[in-house]
């Protein structure tokens, strides 16, 4: 058994951490938070693209580095630690993974090299309304090669050049009628309107589609199946971002508790706070271990992936939500000021626990996959 990252992968982690400490400090995160005109840090994006991060897990023949998913997990954790304000997840965890899994060779050649180089950005549009996306609330329609409908919220939609759109290819909406289509943002029928989010460093928008030209991705009618699979893959990657962010939340809580004195001693010497931080640590370690298992399933194409991904997703979402919320608590009054950084993590953790489906939904996925495994 070797349940750890390799030395090369750890080296990559160290390099990524150093790079982001330098190029993605809190000031640059805040510059995106506080500027309504900016959706992401374009300088940072071009630098991480030059480093090849965007192409990490894209095969060489399509312009990537051809490394594995484990390397991508390592990078994800560092992006999470740094609160990197980039469309990396939408473009790499989701758009690129859809193309890698379901694109024709022609589609891969057309899209992946631009995604790998970072010069183009992709995203995915599924949700249309409040609550869990499902057949009865997906109204976007594909007819005679054109898409019509409205998607909301779409992560990184404003920055995207390409969008994968989930739409019904049949007049009935059911589990076998959903198909996926790739559209080009420059089509005049694509109307983007910005939405404010709980974490403005991770933007979203509404995408209205009026007779937009498109090409189908994957088999007709197998949309939900493809989405399940790609969300499972993305869930593992996000779980590393979440573990990264949760760890920094704990580290900063600890640091503050050692600097701040009350009643004549460091507040970190009070058991009420020590025990709280011990609980943060426990949740983070469990999440990290579940994420590792997800990484193993992802990198080996194991049929355990649906269970491993859901376990990683739930564990990491809960750990990050808890760590970021208790980090504010440990900071006391300054914890809820704009000036202190606690809220950056509080925002990011909640957003990450919603963006590819809620904790509630993933718990349901977990149990239903465990039921299926039992029957098999």
């Amino acid at each position: 058994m070797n349940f750890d990252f390799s030395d090369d992968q750890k080296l990559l982690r160290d390099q990524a951490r150093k790079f982001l400490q330098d190029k993605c400090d809190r000031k640059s995160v805040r510059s995106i938070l506080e500027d309504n005109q900016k959706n992401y840090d374009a300088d940072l994006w071009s630098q991480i693209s030059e480093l090849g991060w965007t192409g990490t897990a894209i095969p060489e023949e399509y312009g990537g580095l051809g490394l594995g998913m484990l390397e991508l997990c390592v990078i994800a954790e560092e992006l999470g630690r740094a609160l990197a304000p980039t469309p990396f997840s939408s473009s790499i965890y989701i758009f690129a993974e859809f193309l890698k899994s379901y694109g024709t060779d022609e589609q891969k050649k057309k899209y992946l090299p631009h995604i790998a180089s970072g010069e183009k950005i992709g995203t995915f549009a599924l949700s249309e309304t409040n609550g869990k996306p499902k057949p009865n609330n997906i109204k976007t329609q594909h007819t005679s090669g054109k898409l019509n409908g409205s998607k909301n919220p779409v992560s990184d939609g404003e920055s995207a050049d390409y969008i994968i759109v989930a739409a019904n290819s049949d007049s009935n909406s059911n589990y076998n009628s959903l198909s996926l289509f790739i559209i080009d943002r420059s089509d005049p029928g694509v109307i983007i309107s910005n939405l404010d989010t709980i974490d403005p460093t991770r933007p979203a928008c509404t995408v209205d589609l009026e007779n937009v030209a498109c090409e189908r991705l994957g088999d007709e009618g197998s949309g939900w199946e493809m989405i399940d699979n790609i969300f499972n893959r993305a869930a593992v990657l996000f779980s590393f971002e979440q573990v990264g962010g949760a760890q920094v939340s704990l580290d900063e809580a600890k640091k503050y508790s050692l600097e701040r004195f009350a009643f004549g001693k460091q507040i970190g010497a009070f058991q009420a706070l020590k025990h709280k931080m011990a609980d943060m640590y426990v949740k983070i370690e469990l999440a990290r271990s579940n994420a590792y298992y997800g990484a193993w399933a992802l990198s080996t194409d194991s049929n355990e992936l649906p269970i491993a991904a859901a376990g990683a997703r739930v564990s990491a979402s809960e750990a990050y939500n808890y760590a970021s919320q208790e980090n504010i608590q440990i900071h006391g009054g300054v914890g809820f000021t704009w000036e202190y950084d606690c809220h950056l993590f509080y925002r990011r953790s909640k957003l990450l626990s919603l963006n590819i489906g809620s904790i509630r939904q993933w718990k349901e996925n977990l149990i239903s996959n465990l039921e299926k495994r039992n029957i098999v």
Partner: protein
Amino acid sequence: MDFNDTPQEAEFRKKVRSFLEANAEKRSTLAAKPKGDSGSSISSAGAPETVKGEDAAKLALQNAKEWQRKKADAGFAAILWPKEFGGYGGTPIEQVIYAQEEHDYFVHSGYFEIGIGMLGPTMMAWGKDEDKKRFLPKMITGEEIWCQLFSEPSAGSDLAGIRMKAEKDGDEWVLNGQKVWTSGAHFADYGMIVARSDPTALKHKGLTYFYVDMKTPGIEAKPIKQISGSANFNEVFFNDVRIPDSQRIGAEGDGWKVSLTTLMNERLAVGDPPGLDFDQIFEASKEIEVEDGLAVKNSEVRQKMADWYIQSRGLQYTKYRSMTALSKGQTPGPELSISKLVTASKMQDVSSYALDLMDMSGMVHQDKNPILKNLFQNGYFFSAAMRIAGGTDEVLRNIIAERVLGLPQDERSDKKLPFNELPSGKN
């Protein structure tokens, strides 16, 4: 990153499997019993349900000894011990492999865990050669059972607060006082004991470590009946118990240092208590009816079970990470202390919730209970004890906060004064 055995490990696993298949009986998920009422698995499990009370306990002990002998003959009884003392001379990974495989079988090794896991390694580190030769091989085969005489009525979480007197009289020591929570003292052949040899020294400096024959005159073990109704622990009274100085382990006054060797090994030995878990409530939820049908189909039940699943598997994978570190020659850190902290509360939550699902039938706790075999009733009682035994939740949180996170130690008033001047609430 992979879970594959190396060729060497695969070979070992094959050996273990064929040994277990030939010698032990497999168990089903719902037959999994919570372990006994201590961190170790001493219970009447293994005895047929028709045999009760003392007879059942005797029979269980006899079965366990037979099993231990088979394990020892096959070389699997003490995988980490060196061969010279009858061990396997194996690696931590091999120990994990053995535990994984044995977990699926209905066998009991709990009687020997304290000796092999904690006391044996202490003797190896601090004991005299003739003692090692005399005692260690019989510890492995189960011929002699050992108990650990550490805790006292006023030394629980604060273990160094030991008051048991050890007074030197020529070449002998005279022991007077009381120990408590001693697993297996009523059937153990030998025990290891820490006592206060100098009450005027600082608390951690005035202790000395010994081993004793439990049949020495003046030693009396009285079982303590627990919340579960069973009695796996004892109070042990020492009344003018005379032992030769040759039974001292380590130097006079070094008792605390020697104890730390025992306690360090405790974390490895009892750090992985199996028992009532996600798998049991998941299986049970397919049999229990709630307001809208089977419990397993109820959304609230599913949400709860998902939380227990991630805790359960999170711990399992954490252990894999620790073991990976071990097999690379790194020491496992105190991060292993999260295991019992999470497991005990999870078991309490799982059992309490399962009893709630069972509705009125959850009230029943009688022998041969046809409904789920008392699984959750037993867990309900056992888990309350488990949150305390072997380090309370609160002590474990302190350990994590101080040793892992490096937060300040609690302020203490007992480090600078001689032991006999410390406030005890009794002076």
